[in-house]
């Protein structure tokens, strides 16, 4: 059974159809890439899955139950977590706190227990601090050591991307949505992130849906590729099938060939 299944999901803003009767499924343990030109509706797709937008029609089923209409935080607590294309870290909080904050969904201590620091609350704090340590250690020494207590704004761009991934995994998700994880990275870093995504699946056990523009990354990680254009699925299959698909080539290059004439 698929972990995530979108059934004929549609969304329009005003008269513009951003996503049109889209069917996508992601199986447990898979890495699926979503590609498509700008404005194809990729990020909108993520916003639909995470509950930021409500679909006009269709259904989104996660782990056997529909998640349409649930608030974003509920969806996150069900086990879907994401990163943002534009990076939305909690900039004035420390690296550690960024990760610990995302543990909100699976911790329990309320205001009163926090106030008096009950033993249970303190145990929980130790647990999530340990969790933050493991999640950050995933990236080697990059986010550890002295950076542990530094505000997120002092990080470099690449490290911010890493921190976002670490934060996304802190809510113990089953499905991880990565929105252009390699955007703005140099070739070395891009190579590293490619390996990292595979590692996330193999060691972390996450199912991953990723939006990516860099075809090297897509080729390197994907079990399956879905191509979108104007909110419609135009191709699906292995990287080779999709990359050579006529419609996909047209979607990416069509306008260019037209204008170059």
């Amino acid at each position, binding site marked *: 059974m698929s972990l995530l299944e979108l059934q004929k999901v549609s969304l329009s*803003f005003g008269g513009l159809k951003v996503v049109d009767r889209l069917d996508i499924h992601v199986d447990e343990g898979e890495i699926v890439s979503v590609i498509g030109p700008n404005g194809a509706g990729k*990020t909108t797709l993520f*916003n639909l899955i995470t509950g*930021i*937008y409500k679909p006009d029609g269709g259904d989104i089923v996660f782990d056997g139950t529909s998640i349409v209409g649930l608030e974003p935080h509920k969806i996150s607590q069900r086990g879907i977590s994401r990163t*943002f294309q*534009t990076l939305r870290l909690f900039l004035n909080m420390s690296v550690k706190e960024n990760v610990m904050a995302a543990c909100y969904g699976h911790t329990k201590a309320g205001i009163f227990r926090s106030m008096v620091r009950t033993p249970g609350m303190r145990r929980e704090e130790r647990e999530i601090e340990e969790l933050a340590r493991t999640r950050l250690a995933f990236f080697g020494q990059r986010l550890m050591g002295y950076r542990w207590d530094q505000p997120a704004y002092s990080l470099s761009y690449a490290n911010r991307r890493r921190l976002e991934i670490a934060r996304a995994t802190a809510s113990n998700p089953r499905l991880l949505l990565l929105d252009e994880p390699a955007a703005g990275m140099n070739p070395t870093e891009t190579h590293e992130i490619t390996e990292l995504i595979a590692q996330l699946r193999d060691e972390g056990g996450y199912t991953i849906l990723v939006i990516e523009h860099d075809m090297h990354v897509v080729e390197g990680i994907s079990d399956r590729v879905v191509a979108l254009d104007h909110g419609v699925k135009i191709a699906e299959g292995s990287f080779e099938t999709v990359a050579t698909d006529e419609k996909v080539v047209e979607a990416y290059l069509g306008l260019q060939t037209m204008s170059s004439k």
Partner: protein
Amino acid sequence: MDQFIQLTVDGLTLGSVYALIALGYTLVYGVLKLLNFAHGDVFMVGTFVGYGVLQELGGPMNPKVPIWLLITLVTVAAMAVTAGLGVAIERFAYRPLRDAPRIAPLISALGVSFFLSNSMQLLFGATPRNYDLFEYNAGSLYLRGIHIGGVTIPLLRITTIVAAFVLMVILWFLVNKTRTGKAMRATSYDREAAAMMGIDIDRVIVFTFVLGSALAGAAGVMFALRVPTNVSIGFIAGLKGFIAAVIGGIGSIPGAMIGGLLLGFAESYIQGYVSTQWSDLYVFTILVLFMLFRHQGLLGRPDIRKV
């Protein structure tokens, strides 16, 4: 029936004042996405400027100029001074904060509001000022007018309402038919894109503040023609104008007009038929209902969350 007509006229007068204040909020919000808390105090300054000019020109008892000219001069002076004040506030209290976190200009605006009302109190004291136009020619401005049923709608009322609508039409023309108006609308739609298209954003913003503040000045005079003014009037008037703008849909110009009139009618009828003391409570209820069920207001666009 007579009471109804009376209340309707009251509501219309009050509503047009609210609408003029609300327009100031809405214009500035449209362009800067800033709630200009100091707007109510600019309005208050307008009422005082009007009072000062009125006294200088001999007062209502023995005016040095014909009465129509007197009222026009008072209004124009108030509009000129408030326009200048608005520009100064923008230049010194808001412009440095244009790229700051969103809460920063709001707090600066609170500071300006507090500064203005207390400065006025420092200079002119807390005593109420009355335009006393009733004194003119044995109350002819109030006693003459149109008779509907048993109700007299005084000349002054009619003038006020008409003037307010004329101002709104002029505003509509400025915003919709002039180049600067077009630039204004472009800026409110997307400031950065407008700047890249060669629109001088600073000029547009200054223009916006001139328009909004001048309207507040005019509203101030219209308000003070009805009831005495004092230095703390800005808080309440500002708040009401604010609410009118929100009900109409903040950022929308026709919305502010409709919101202002609606609020004026609502207050007038509530005070006439239900309760004078508790009208604030009802207005609050209306506001909360709007917030809950249609927080973009009557004519506002629902905002799409950008991710």
